């Protein structure tokens, strides 16, 4: 079992997602804005859960960076949605990679986290381009 580095990577992805949603949220309105706020809180909750797992394993949880470089300038709705999709895809990848290294309830947590990322990515893709395919066959790959 090599769970700790995978959990640290998942935690780092959650930190980045929290920052990212903080940056993109103000560019959305209405239901999307609400969803972004809700999602940011979900990532905060997940961050706390992973940090607790790491402490239980006697590891020091990686801290958040003070700031993150955004992959592209986030101005306007489309860019905000694109960033949201990317954040979910990256977090999904971190959780998918953790799955084989975890067992029992911890693995279930990773599957749940991966699933929720995939569901949110699908919602954001649909918000961005409802007529394009909005799912991927292997989330996290």
């Amino acid at each position, binding site marked *: 079992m090599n769970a700790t580095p995978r959990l640290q990577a998942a935690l780092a992805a959650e930190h980045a997602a929290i920052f990212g949603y903080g940056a993109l949220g103000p560019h959305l309105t209405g239901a999307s804005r609400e969803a972004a706020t809700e999602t940011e809180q979900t990532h905060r909750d997940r961050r706390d859960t992973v940090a607790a797992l790491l402490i239980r394993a006697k590891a020091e949880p990686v801290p958040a960076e003070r700031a993150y470089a955004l992959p592209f300038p986030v101005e306007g709705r489309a860019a905000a949605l694109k960033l949201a999709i990317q954040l979910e895809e990256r977090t*999904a990848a971190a959780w*998918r*990679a953790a*799955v*084989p290294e975890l067992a*029992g309830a911890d*693995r*279930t947590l*990773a*599957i749940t986290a*991966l*699933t929720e*990322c*995939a*569901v949110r*990515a*699908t*919602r954001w893709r*649909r918000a961005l381009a409802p*007529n394009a*395919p*909005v*799912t*991927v*066959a*292997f*989330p*996290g*790959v």
Partner: protein
Amino acid sequence: MTKLLARRRLLTGALAGAAGVLTATALSGCGLLPDGDGAGTPEADPDPLEPLLTAELALVASYDQAIAALPALAARLRPLRADHAAHAQALRARIDPRRADAIPTKAPPGAAASATSSTLAALAKAERVNADGAIKLCLATEGERAALLASIAACESSHLVVLA
């Protein structure tokens, strides 16, 4: 136990092959090992992925049926069908070909859920059942297979967004 037997059969087969070469080159007429029954392929053990492969193929068939019955939904359903076809392909690639080749590439007729006004609900139910099955299997398996199964389950949950 069955695994051990299969391995032994495999080993016997390999040795029989080696003995064949020996016989031809040096020991003609004097078999070092019994030739065995001569039937080429040893059997492989059933793979725990097989039921999921069958279920993915049944889902592909269900989507085909739904798309045929409700052309208005085709654009929405086709990408979901493609995801399941990709799942089936990935699962098949991980199953010993001696077993996988026995599973047809298409689900038998009748495997698909019937297309009615509740088609979307029926598909959603099938997606949920499949996702649960993939999760169960994921929790009982190791390595890259576990990651693949987690991805399949996540994908099927994301399909519910489209079917809702």
